[in-house]
């Protein structure tokens, strides 16, 4: 029988090993913490990016659904002739104010995207007034008239975001929708 002795202190080896293990664990935790921090900020950045794309879409849709053709032989929405490279543009007609339903007049509206500035603009509802900026910082806006009653909108936004590896590079978010012009459903 081994005689019961007082519990001895930790050996140097034990202390070294346990410190090393603790340090390792701490380092791993720190890594996880940093990685999740960056994942979080990347995530919120992505959400903000998506939000920007969706907001742009939400600003365009209510405008386009107002399109009503000036006469039966014209379309409510169309691609204008004066289209320049690296831009997209769609034109449509809306009732002009003051509006007399028995003798209506219509006003031509347009929505223009220029890639050089990243701006989405539209002309004012009242002729002569300044153009309005609908969205900024847009990478690409596609405005494609598919048929007289529908237009396909593609919004592409970009922002520099950190990826999993911790490198910062441009990330892209794209939303696409087809807006049906309600006027045609009533014909």
């Amino acid at each position, binding site marked *: 029988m081994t005689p019961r002795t007082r519990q001895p202190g930790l050996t140097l080896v034990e202390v070294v090993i346990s410190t090393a293990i603790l340090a390792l664990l701490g380092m791993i935790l720190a890594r996880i913490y940093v990685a999740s921090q960056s994942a979080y900020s990347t995530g919120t950045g992505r959400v903000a990016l998506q939000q920007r794309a969706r907001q742009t879409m939400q600003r365009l849709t209510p405008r386009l659904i107002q399109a009503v053709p000036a*006469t039966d032989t014209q379309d409510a929405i169309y691609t204008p002739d004066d289209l320049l490279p690296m831009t997209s543009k769609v034109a449509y007609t809306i009732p002009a104010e003051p509006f007399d339903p*028995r003798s209506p007049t219509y006003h031509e509206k347009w929505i223009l995207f220029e890639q050089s500035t990243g701006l989405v603009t539209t002309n004012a509802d009242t002729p002569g007034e300044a153009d309005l900026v609908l969205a900024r910082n847009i990478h690409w806006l596609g405005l494609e008239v598919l048929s007289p009653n529908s237009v396909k909108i593609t919004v592409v936004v970009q922002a520099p975001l950190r990826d999993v590896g911790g490198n910062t590079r441009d990330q892209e978010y794209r939303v696409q929708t087809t807006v049906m012009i309600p006027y045609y459903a*009533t014909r």
Partner: protein
Amino acid sequence: MKRPGRRRGTVLLLAIFFLVILNFLALALLDLLPLELRAAGRNRLETAAFLAADSGVLHALAFIEDRVSRGETPLPDDATSYVLRGETGDWNWEATLTADPQTPPRGTGTIRVYEIHSLASLDGVAYRAVRALARQETFARYAWFEDQRRSDLVITTSNYHIDGPFHSNSRIRILVPPGFYDQNLTPTFESEVTTVESHDTPDGVAYQGTPPYDSQGNPLPERYRKIFRGGRESLRTGARRIELPTDSGALARAAQGQSSVTPSTRGVHLGQDASSEGLSGGLTVVGDVDSMVLAVEEGGNRSVTIKQGHSTTKVVEVTDTAITDPDGNPVLRGSTILYKPDGTFTVHSGLTNGLIYGTGNIRDLQGVNKGKRTVAVDMAANKEIVLGGSLTRADTPVGQTPEGGRDSLGLVAYNVRIPTSVAQTVNPPTDIYAAILAGTKGSEGGFYVDSWETRTPGRIRLYGGLMMGYKPAWASVDSVEGTVLNGVTVDSTYDPNLASSPPPHFPTIGKFRVLRYQEEAPSVD
């Protein structure tokens, strides 16, 4: 004695500590998920809300169109406002129809306008609203309309060119001259063709000559496109019947305005306000008219000169430039002067509503029209308008297609006739800029050419539309060659502005057109 394993507690503490930290990290990441979900969910909700509100508008339109087509007033009891409710899935919509100030019973307008406000809600919460404005369509939307066609008349592909909507409550027969399909002519029908009845043929149309289908009745697209621009698809038989009015009582009331007494003495009467000297209607002409000339005065003001026997009445509307009356007093813009046959005159504030209504025949109508105007006669009493010469517009050079609806003219009569003094030659033709409605439901009223069998070939160039109760013969045509031997041909150029901006109080059809459509923030009122 000390308890063994005391150190194990430290391990547990450490483990809990690390677990808590890891948990926090995981939770932080999870936090992002609902953000995305919420955004996507809101998107979906908004789309669904819009669709629900939109279905309210569609339902409201279908509701009034259905009632009008059954001969009822658009809203039950001809109310000024009416609410419809319905469901689309989990969504509820509430569509409120409101008559505009000129629509009966609020006004005397014949072309009705309703505002539709549709509100979509889910579980009692309003999400989206849509506001639309719908106006009744008029007969002016057609390039060509015929109620009936009794004799074996033909529409020949070389003499007719109809570049707008065509409708027949009857059926049609088309003459196809030999070699027609080999030629490169403009298609006879540029737009939709609808007929209520049909011939017992593969497509419901009787062809005199080679039909555009093969012996088995299969359509030959190449041939169809030579007759109809849109091909076989633009021809539809079995369409809904569209009835012409039976009388012009609504126009008489609109011309009378708020005047409480119906004009009965022979002569020209202005529709006046019930209380003041101001105008609220148009002109009512009691008795036959020997001549009516529409003109533009110096300064751009519009006028009409009406002769009845030895009496001449002139009405000048100061639309553009202020003038002085015969006494030297200034007459401001927006006033109307009535020069009476006895040499006196009266000045009234306001302009007419553009309606000239005659209780008798108008035996000679011609001139230049400015502003929107409708000249109508009592259709129920079989009254007619005889064209005495060209009818042009101030806003359009003769021979050109109108670019807007500012000076559009409508003619409404039981018969509209072309006398032998008009359209005597093919070149130059007689120009008529008007939407012409001639004839009542099921009657023989229509657009007539006097002595068509014997007169030398002449031509009417019509910019507008021709709506007829009865389509009589106008010309005799060589049935093989398609060339005109006698009579008058009508070259029509459709004016789409007449559909979107019709002449005032022009007779209406059961359809409504949406003039304005917008989404708005919901407001529960």
